[in-house]
């Protein structure tokens, strides 16, 4: 049900404090590359590498706005990870969806 390769990429991306800080920054809104790099006392190419890891995990995307490239946060992969974490969350949601669907189908048949 879950794409384990993507999970691995997301978990790898989250395993580094700088990358978590970048996500935290982008959660407040899109930013340009230099604005992202500024708070960190690292070389620009280190920031570039971190962004590549985040991009591979699907946690950020780049969009061109005229001459500028804005980098923004994407929450989808984190929701997948959260769902995967909670075994019972997944279990009951799947069960209840099936149960609900059974009664919906039954009602449809009765109307015919």
């Amino acid at each position: 049900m879950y794409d384990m390769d993507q999970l691995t990429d997301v978990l790898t991306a989250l395993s580094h404090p700088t990358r978590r800080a970048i996500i935290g920054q982008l959660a407040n809104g899109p930013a340009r590359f230099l604005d992202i790099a500024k708070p960190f006392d690292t070389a620009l190419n280190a920031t570039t590498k971190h962004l590549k890891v985040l991009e591979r995990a699907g946690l950020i995307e780049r969009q061109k706005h005229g001459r500028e490239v804005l980098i923004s946060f994407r929450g989808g992969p984190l929701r997948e990870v959260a769902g995967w974490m909670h075994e019972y969350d997944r279990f009951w949601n799947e069960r209840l969806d099936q149960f609900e669907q059974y009664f919906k189908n039954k009602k449809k048949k009765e109307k015919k």
Partner: protein
Amino acid sequence: MTNSKKTLEFKFDRTIPAPPAEVFDGWLDPKIPGNPWNMAEKLLLNPKVDGFFYWLIKENSHYGRFTEIERPSRIQHTWMSRSTLGEETTVTLTFKKQGEDTLMTLVHTGIPDTEAGRGHERGWNHFLDIFPEQFGDGSRKEK
């Protein structure tokens, strides 16, 4: 995250297009898809107060005891499996009439909040500790 006695609670709501009594009965009928007893490899089910159940699926045994049966409004039973690490957890269902439908609520409490209970791998606790700081309420520390 170091307290192994910390427990998790999950709550789910569904609106079912049928009256409460029908939904209540459906939840206890192993033939109806979606309830816990459906698709069992082995099932022993005695849905009355102090009745027990045994449910085997994918080589994972589940055990429990019904503690409340109030047709058509409420079912409560305990729930133990390898995912609860032998701890007795509690599943409570309520069925409330909502027009022609039923608002069904399932609450599962007392689930051990451990790495094994969550079914995840080592290293998660660190992430879970840091996650609320980053996303909780926008109160991220500014540089």
